């Protein structure tokens, strides 16, 4: 499931809301074409210092390409990329204060862990006698002290991934790019490493840009998430806002589990909307999403955990529908009920199983009532 619990970081860190702050990275109308294929399409983006910024999107949507343009491996076909107010056009990768952690780690197989980490330092203007200290510091940070003398093929996948991280961090870059850094790890190690990454990011105060196609990972680590589709950035926002106030049906559908009901929207003066969605069924009342116009085709989106399920018709709610339980997914901590509405649509409702072996809730083919508040769901254009 998706959790929007990134609130571990201080609540006041929100430079994107502060007009006095200037972004570290700026994409201005950046387009990248390979032949006549557009991989990145007119992207505008601002990323601030010390941010942990996630690029999220389905495979092939242009995340890696965006990242490679930051590192200097690709040049933008159109538009401008600036880092620290400096135009990056024509600046080769070795002269950018940007380091990248590669998806494949790209560790040098003929060099030891120590030499891999020292690689960038030896090619910087750091004094020779300072290098061992810095390498040691990186080894400590990534808990690799014991493996310093080993070659990359003599350590485990997780350790290799930490070497790649240490190597990219060693030069204390302004900006660290991580391309699916945890892709090769199993779920448990992955979760642990996510927290390690956040910890390291906070300690080093480096700006991180991470590419992932795992939405849970993006939600966990990032201060802000950019959701991409087909080379376009669809929405940039904090994980909580991406989850709670998606700006489009695409984002709502991409992030987490969602119920979608199509209908015709009528705007009400109090900011709420009525959605006529089925013959004879009462109209749904919900909050209007961004850019919704009166009378347009629209979709009502609501997260399953915001739909209450009960055996009796609940009192005092505007949005109430009756249905029959079609399927139950028991996930241990929660249960998801798939309820068939009279029109044939399926609506999912989630309950938390906070009591062990409580009285058995509902079972297949039970007639139940689903209800939600006026502000629980959004009506979005399209």
């Amino acid at each position, binding site marked *: 499931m998706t959790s929007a619990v990134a609130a571990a970081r201080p609540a006041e860190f929100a430079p994107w809301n502060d007009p006095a702050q200037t972004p570290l990275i700026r994409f201005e109308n950046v387009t990248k074409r390979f032949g006549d294929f557009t991989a990145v399409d007119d992207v505008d983006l601002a990323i601030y210092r010390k941010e942990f910024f996630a690029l999220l999107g389905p495979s092939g949507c242009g995340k890696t390409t965006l990242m490679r343009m930051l*590192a200097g491996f690709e040049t933008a076909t159109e538009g401008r990329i600036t880092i620290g107010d400096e135009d990056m056009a024509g600046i080769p990768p070795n002269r950018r204060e940007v380091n990248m952690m590669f998806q494949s780690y790209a560790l040098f197989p003929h060099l030891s862990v120590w030499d891999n980490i020292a*690689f960038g330092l030896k090619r910087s203007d750091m004094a020779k006698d300072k290098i061992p200290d810095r390498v040691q510091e990186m080894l400590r940070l990534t808990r690799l002290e014991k493996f310093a003398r080993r070659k990359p093929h003599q350590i485990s996948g997780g350790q290799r991934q930490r070497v790649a991280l240490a190597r990219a961090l060693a030069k204390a870059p302004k900006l660290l790019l991580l391309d699916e850094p945890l892709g090769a790890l199993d779920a448990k190690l992955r979760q642990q490493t996510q927290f390690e990454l956040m910890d390291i990011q906070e300690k080093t105060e480096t700006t991180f840009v991470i590419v992932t196609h795992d939405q849970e990972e993006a939600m966990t680590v990032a201060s802000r998430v950019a959701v991409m589709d087909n080379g376009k950035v669809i929405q940039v926002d904090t994980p909580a806002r991406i989850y709670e106030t998606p700006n489009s049906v695409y984002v709502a559908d991409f992030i987490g589990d969602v119920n979608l009901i199509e209908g015709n929207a009528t705007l009400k003066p109090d900011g709420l909307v009525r959605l006529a969605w089925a013959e004879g069924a009462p109209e749904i009342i919900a909050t209007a999403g961004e850019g919704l116009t009166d009378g347009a085709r629209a979709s009502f989106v609501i997260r399953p955990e915001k739909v209450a399920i009960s055996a009796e018709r609940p009192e005092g709610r505007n949005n109430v529908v009756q249905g029959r339980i079609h399927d139950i997914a028991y996930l241990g901590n929660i249960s998801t009920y798939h309820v068939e509405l009279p029109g044939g649509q399926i609506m999912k409702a989630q309950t938390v199983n906070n009591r062990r072996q409580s009285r058995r809730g509902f079972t297949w083919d039970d007639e139940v009532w689903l209800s939600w508040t006026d502000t629980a769901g959004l009506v979005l254009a399209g």
Partner: protein
Amino acid sequence: MTIGRRALIGIPYLWLLLLFLVPFGIIFKISLSDITLAIPPYTPTLDLSEGWPGIRDFLRQLDFENYVFLTEDALYWKAYLSSLRIALVSTLLALCVGYPIAYGMARAAPEWRPTLMMLVILPFWTSFLIRVYAWIGILSTEGYLNQFLQWIGLIAEPLQIMNTPTAVYVGIVYTYLPFMILPIYATLERMDDSLLEAAEDLGCSRLSAFWIITFPLSRSGIIAGCFLVFIPAIGEFVIPSLLGGSGTLMIGKVLWEEFFSNRDWPVASAVAIILLLILVIPIILFQKTLEKNQEADA
């Protein structure tokens, strides 16, 4: 171990025994014999019909005279040294020519690589002898190269390339180039491009990334290629005799002359045995590095 497995492992050993050890034994025996005017042109010959005393008599007549002879005549060790030098220089030249070609092939667009590979292997489809003869047509005083150079006005008089060591170098490098290119290409092609990007990302220029990353990582290919050129080049006979004329001394040529001109089989055999001993060292080294690479890859 089952009998079947033993038999399976036995086959290569049997092969080695028949095709290497037995001929080696025969040559070694001849090298201990004396020259005579007979067929075969050496003595003693083993006659088993006389039984034990015959064998003992036979063994008593064998000696290391021919090896002593080799050390007395300067021609032989000069020929060995000259062969070593020519093989070494040719190997280095082949490396200098072959590495860029292999590098270019590995960097070429993937759809071009099979074609390029084909072009490298293509010369093998015609006879080696014909290809070496073709070089005579190119390198001789009236050859295409001299004609061309005179035509563009670079030289007034034709260059004497034929019958010099230069012609031998050209011939050896040309002949053995594919053996240099293919192993190097194999290591370069296997290399992950993101390593170079990582090096660049960490502050290397393109050129230093080549020396720090690409070159060391292609080491196993370089070593394999060098041995594959060096080992056959040292005993090369056809190229020095066709292109080198009397001006180049190589042990392969000496060997040929001992066998066919002097009909001195025992001395020729001794020359061959020494050559083999010289080659055993690089061959063992080659095997060692192969094993090491296999371990590293595993």
